[in-house]
């Protein structure tokens, strides 16, 4: 058989890890990225990466990490994958340490760990305030080394436009767009891995980087691949409003005593420091006396939204609230929070040690993504040799990182994403290589007509785009799409609004036909690409919106007040486990529970029977067709979560 190779699209943490692991097995890799891989979105992560190394002797273990992960995800995560990921957490962190990541240390020279949301353990390794950047650099360096060794070839400033499928529908290469020369060419590959990150830009502005459009995964969906759990979008409670981006303000600001408030009087325009304490509404502290400002992410986001949108109390009549640290001394703040306060000052020009910060929730992360498969073992772990791992529903097309859908369920735990990205990249390596070695015909030996046809299709599409002479500016249309999504498909979801939003998105699809290709130069012209990406973002916004509309429940980040199960205030999750055990044993003694609890548990079960399923979108007749698939919850019994 001719020489074979794998094409990896995207050089964030997931793509670089996959490249390394595949190349290590002697398989040639072509790595394609929009921009130099060292500038990928993964650099943004500040907080850290999880792994139950138990350095602090707290009795932490991969099993507890696993439990926290599936509970955090409201039980929508695929448990064997979550378990295997958590079991590999310590390995991933040790590997990254060996690769030179400058993790913070303890006095003994061990790795230091901090606490993060959703757990009681110090499980998060970190490197200053730039953990993602440091992790990415370590992998980037390894890939550069492999490049010098000749086993990896890089194509930066190139865009993936679509998979090339042979007559049986197997992926045998990719159509690639040179972003400088404008040429569209085919690259042969015996497997293609999409490690193209998340889709925050569907919302216009988010905490994501400028290239996070989700265009690659959407193009796979348009080619027939399944897309999973699209409606699950994590909203971070505290971001700094900005015209270009909503920059993250780390949870640690609240961890160190930051207080969230708004003026009690709507439209009170006095400078914050002139508003006396009794005229300030510390709404999180008043509404959640126990947790106060440190309520979980989803609760925090919902309350801020409520105060601004329903209460009309946003600062200056706008959608923002104060996050106030000014009751602490400068010295204290610099010592505890220096790095993140500098970020605030750098980007707003306001000193947060003197003035309260202004924040509002923002789109942060997509739990959903392209559907991928896996093969579990008896013990509920993953068989790392299996070619099914991380395979999309198109044979030969794989996905990893934020681009996939099955690790974080309905809500991601902080610091679990960096882990899932590196873990999936490494884990899938052996299986991809096994797949490639067993294909019946190498991509190299497939008739060139297959490739020419695929290239021709994309060339025609781009020729049409370049000839577009309509009246709409594509950047302005994108702006409108983003504002629409932020207004209607964000924190609180209501069916009538979602239905109207879908209609408007369909209108945008019409209006897309009327955009103008505002730049016609051939050399380094991003506009045609952008117009194509905008089309894909419109399609993806439909997956998100329709998925949200159809899912009539409240799970994790997907909040629909109409379908809240109204957990009784005095209910404890253990009560449910008792009930569940009785049920497993064949008979429930209903008298051992209060009627109110009994009713609630029945509601909970009926809801899970109906909705504890992945939503799967497939492109049919120009619209997403949504069906539901079982989730493997065989290892930890799904149970009610408690929020206070």
């Amino acid at each position, binding site marked *: 058989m001719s020489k074979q190779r794998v094409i990896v699209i995207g050089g964030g943490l997931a793509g670089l890890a996959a490249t390394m692991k595949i190349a290590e097995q002697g398989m040639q890799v072509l790595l394609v990225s929009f921009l130099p891989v060292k500038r990928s979105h993964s650099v*943004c992560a500040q907080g850290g990466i999880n792994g139950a190394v138990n350095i602090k002797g707290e009795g932490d273990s991969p099993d507890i990490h696993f439990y926290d992960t599936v509970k955090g995800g409201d039980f929508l995560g695929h448990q064997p994958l979550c378990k295997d990921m958590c079991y590999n957490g310590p390995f991933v962190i040790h590997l990254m340490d060996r690769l030179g990541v400058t993790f913070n240390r303890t006095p003994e020279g061990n790795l230091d760990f901090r606490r993060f949301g959703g757990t009681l353990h110090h499980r998060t390794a970190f490197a200053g305030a730039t953990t993602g950047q440091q992790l990415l650099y370590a992998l980037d360096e390894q890939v550069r080394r492999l490049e010098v060794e000749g086993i990896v070839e890089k194509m930066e400033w190139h865009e993936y436009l679509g998979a090339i499928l042979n007559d049986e529908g197997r992926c045998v290469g990719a159509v690639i767009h040179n972003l400088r020369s404008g040429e569209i060419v085919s690259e042969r590959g015996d497997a293609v891995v999409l490690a193209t990150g998340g889709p925050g830009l569907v919302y216009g502005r988010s905490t994501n980087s400028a290239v996070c459009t989700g265009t690659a995964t959407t193009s796979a969906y348009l080619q027939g691949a399944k897309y999973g759990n699209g409606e699950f979008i994590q909203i971070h409670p505290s971001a700094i409003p900005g015209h270009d981006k909503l920059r993250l303000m780390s949870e640690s600001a609240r961890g160190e005593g930051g207080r969230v408030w708004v003026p009690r009087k709507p439209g009170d325009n006095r400078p914050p420091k002139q508003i006396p304490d009794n005229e300030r509404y510390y709404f999180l502290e008043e509404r959640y006396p126990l947790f106060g400002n440190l309520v979980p992410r989803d609760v925090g986001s919902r309350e801020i939204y409520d105060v601004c949108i329903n209460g009309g109390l946003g600062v200056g009549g706008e959608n923002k609230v104060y996050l106030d640290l000014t009751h602490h001394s400068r010295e204290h703040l610099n010592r505890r929070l220096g790095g993140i306060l500098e970020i605030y000052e750098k980007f707003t020009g306001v000193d947060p040690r003197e003035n309260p910060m202004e924040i509002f929730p923002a789109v942060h992360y997509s739990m959903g993504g392209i559907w991928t498969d896996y093969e579990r073992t008896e013990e509920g772990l993953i068989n790392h040799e299996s070619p099914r791992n991380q395979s999309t529903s198109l044979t030969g097309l794989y996905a990893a990182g934020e681009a996939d859908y099955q690790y974080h369920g309905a809500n991601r735990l902080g610091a679990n994403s960096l882990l899932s990205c590196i873990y999936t990249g490494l884990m899938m390596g052996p299986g991809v290589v096994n797949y490639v070695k067993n294909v019946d015909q190498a991509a190299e030996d497939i008739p060139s007509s297959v490739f020419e046809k695929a290239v021709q299709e994309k060339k025609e599409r781009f020729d049409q785009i370049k000839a577009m002479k309509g009246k709409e500016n594509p950047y302005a249309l994108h702006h409108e799409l983003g504002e629409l999504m932020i207004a209607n498909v964000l924190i609180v979801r209501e069916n009538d609004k979602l239905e109207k939003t879908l209609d408007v998105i369909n209108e945008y699809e019409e209006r897309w036909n009327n955009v103008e290709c505002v730049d016609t130069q051939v050399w380094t012209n*991003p506009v045609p690409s952008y117009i194509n990406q905008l089309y894909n973002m419109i399609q993806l916004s439909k997956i998100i919106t329709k998925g949200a509309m159809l899912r009539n429940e409240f799970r994790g980040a997907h909040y629909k007040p109409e379908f809240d199960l109204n957990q009784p205030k005095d209910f404890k999750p253990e009560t449910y486990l008792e009930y569940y055990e009785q049920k497993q044993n064949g008979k429930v003694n209903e008298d051992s529970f209060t009627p109110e609890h009994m009713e609630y548990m029945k509601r909970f079960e009926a809801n899970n029977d109906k909705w504890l399923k992945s939503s799967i979108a497939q492109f049919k007749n120009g619209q997403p067709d949504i069906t539901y698939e079982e989730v493997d919850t065989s290892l930890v019994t799904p149970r009610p979560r408690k929020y206070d």
Partner: protein
Amino acid sequence: MAEKTITIQIKRQDSRDSSSYWQTFEIPYKPNSNVISCLMDIRRNPVTKEGKQVPPVIWECNCLEEVCGACTMVINGRVRQSCSALIDTLAQPVRLQPMSKFPVVRDLAVDRSRMFENLKKVKAWMQVDGYHDLGPGAKVPETNQGIAYKLSECMTCGCCMEACPQFSLNNNFIGAAPISQARLFNMNPVGKFIAEQRLQPLMEAGGIGDCGNAQNCVEACPKSIPLTESIAEMSKQVSVQMFKNIFQKRS
């Protein structure tokens, strides 16, 4: 009263070899704008001050948080990232130019591949045996971690090279950033095993000997990386290595 506006002058160039020209844009003032948000506004309505419809301006950007290094350009004469350049702190008209030490691709976008190639020369990576489970890494004292962390924040942005009088389009000086990276790996408990290999390219033409000690690099670095300290340290390592080389040849 006339509405408040922001005036931006941009040096444009259609391709590598074509000549450059200036265009002026005037956009409505928004509080808390930065250079990138203005470029985005222009992109949504690419019309010059004179009312001429033009193609949107090309620039590079990604993270918008000053950690990816992409959006570097010369703003009012100073090289820096455009995401963290706040309009309220800049004199108007705001003048944007591409970096001059790298070939222009188009408008404000330049080709910095030379920087990535130089990282290959100094073997800026760890020479690990494999990506399988080999247990924990070496212990590292907190103080070393502190220095190493600072060095590893380098985002290959190019500010230090733009500011350097020795680094030019037509020579092969390696520049401050890769020298500092060589220091980072040479101080790692395992990285130092191949320290000599990292010193070799620094001894050659375009190596550390070409540094003129102007110290502009450290001033220009947005991450406050102690570049002059790194250069001094690597000069020392290079001198020792040269001495060793001579000695080895003789014996």
